[in-house]
């Protein structure tokens, strides 16, 4: 056991500072253990998001000595005894409190990306694929959505305005996964990656690959192949000419006519209300306070027998499909 020095960022969207702490560290511990000990012994209201402590849930992403990392996978033994370990929240996303950030940018980008399109004429359950055809896509399924790649990518980290145009590495691997999928029926994914996801913003400096805790070769196996596929479709005059002459995989030039998904509500299907992918969901109302300014914790004083709804008491289900910020194929 030893006592080590730490600097932990504390604050919220209004501001904050790096506080100094001295915390006990035992053999075999990781940074998340130290954060928990800090909560238990010195700072009971330190906010930190975590779940599995096994590097599989992707919740405990933070920046440790300036590098985006999973705190549950960063061993204390990798630091010197007398080294001060600095722990800060992810810089690219708005901070909620202390080490917890609002990663909803990523969920907006996820909603914008069209899902797997089932092949026509094949019923679910009858899908058949060769192992070698799905292997490439399977690498990308390892993603645990820790958003370290999204956080480290300088396109959005250092240039906030690019967030609108740029989907980020996590969604490039998703795009590549679907474009390489042997049964996906959608054939304008290359166009989509270029014009809607902002693939051209990537300058392949490979930081996403460097920080990926699942060791997905994001740049080599997803972004560069996707860039090359876009070249086939958009930039290579010989391939474009060859496709025209041989009349191969003719597709409608959808992307140029398509509205940018970031612009506002998008008509996804003819018989459906337009979907506003970027709509901010209404935040749930805060719980009612009593005369003393506290929440009524006593069941006797509460107006219902069960716990409050995690979605907010003002929300009733089913939600009106017109107000959704995603595309629900069954709800019109």
């Amino acid at each position, binding site marked *: 056991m030893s006592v080590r020095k730490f600097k932990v*960022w504390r*604050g*919220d*969207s209004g501001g*904050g500072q*790096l506080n100094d702490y001295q915390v006990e560290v035992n053999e075999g511990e990781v940074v998340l253990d130290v954060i928990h000990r800090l909560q238990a012994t010195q700072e009971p209201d330190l906010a930190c998001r975590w779940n599995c402590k096994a590097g599989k849930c992707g919740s405990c992403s933070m*920046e440790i*000595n*300036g*590098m*985006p990392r999973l705190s549950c996978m960063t061993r204390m033994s990798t630091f010197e005894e007398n*080294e001060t370990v*600095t722990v*800060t*929240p992810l*810089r*690219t*996303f*708005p*901070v*909620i*409190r202390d080490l917890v950030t*609002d990663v909803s940018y990523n969920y907006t980008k996820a909603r914008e990306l069209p899902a797997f399109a089932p092949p026509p004429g094949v019923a679910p359950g009858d899908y058949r694929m060769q192992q*070698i*055809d799905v292997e490439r896509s399977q690498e990308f399924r390892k993603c645990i959505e820790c958003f370290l790649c999204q956080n*480290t990518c*300088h*396109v959005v*980290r*250092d240039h906030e305005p*690019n967030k609108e145009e740029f989907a980020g590495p996590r969604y490039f691997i998703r795009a590549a996964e679907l474009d*390489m*999928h*042997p049964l996906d029926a959608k054939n304008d994914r290359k166009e989509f990656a270029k014009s809607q996801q*902002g693939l*051209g*913003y*990537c*300058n*392949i*400096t*490979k*930081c996403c690959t*460097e*920080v990926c805790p699942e060791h997905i070769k994001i740049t*080599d196996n997803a972004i*560069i*192949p996707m*860039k*090359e*596929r876009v*070249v*086939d479709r*958009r*930039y*290579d005059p010989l391939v474009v000419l060859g496709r025209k002459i041989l009349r191969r995989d003719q597709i409608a030039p959808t992307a140029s006519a398509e509205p940018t998904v970031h612009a506002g509500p998008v008509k996804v299907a003819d018989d459906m209300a337009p979907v506003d992918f970027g709509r901010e969901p209404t*935040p749930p109302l*805060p719980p009612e306070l009593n005369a003393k300014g*506290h*929440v009524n914790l006593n069941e006797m004083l509460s107006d219902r027998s069960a716990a409050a709804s995690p979605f907010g008491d003002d929300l009733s289900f089913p939600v009106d499909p017109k107000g959704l910020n995603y595309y629900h194929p069954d709800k019109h």
Partner: protein
Amino acid sequence: MTTLATRPTGAKARAEISAKTLRTDRWWLAPLITAVGLFAWVAYATFRVFMQKWYWVDEYHYLTPFYSPCVSEGCEPAAAHFGRFIPDSPWIPYAALSLPFLLLFRLTCYYYRKAYYRAFWMSPPACAVPDGHKNYSGETRFPLIFQNLHRYAFYAAVIISIFNTYDAIMAMQKANGDFGFGLGNVILWVNVIMLWAYTASCHSCRHIIGGRLKHFSKHPVRYRAWTFVSKLNTRHMGLAWITLATLAITDFYIMALAAGWFSDLRFVG
């Protein structure tokens, strides 16, 4: 719990951290080494390309890759395997047909892009270290949008590699027509093999060979070729630096022989 958790207020502010980067490791070392390495190599290559002498060892038919194919009217007749048709000028390299394409191949290479964007353009210098620029549009606009034509530079590099292979074969015949083999031949062959490995490990090559397919099972031969190129591709960075080294060593060795600084170690003839 007696206190209320802070709710998202709708204000979208990032955490206020004054330090530009909190990295404590030597993150500046890798871009520094890259910058010094690339700068030194480009300086040497430029110096040699415009030197216009000591590029051909007539006795053993060694031609340096920096002058291959030698097509200038200033070339020595024996070194010009493919004719001499480019005007002789101190400003035009003797291999003016191949060098611009080789430069383009390396400039648009997916590895070198990473290297020089980090080391020279500081965009970003290292992961989680701020970009040195205020605005950023990536490779979406002129001139960087032309990075997308890497595959054409790859086609050119394949053709030039054939010329280099031809040079290596020709170098096994001495001036008197007999077979000969020396240390110079070993260096030339190592260089050619490494150039082929670097060219074949190119990301565009990987795409063209099989990466563009959706159904590997329908194209078993291309799948096997893709698997092979993929294995090479993981070493693209290493090969990029190895070929810079082999090119410079080959050129220096031939320069030294041509200038008479030392003589070739001969194994046969």
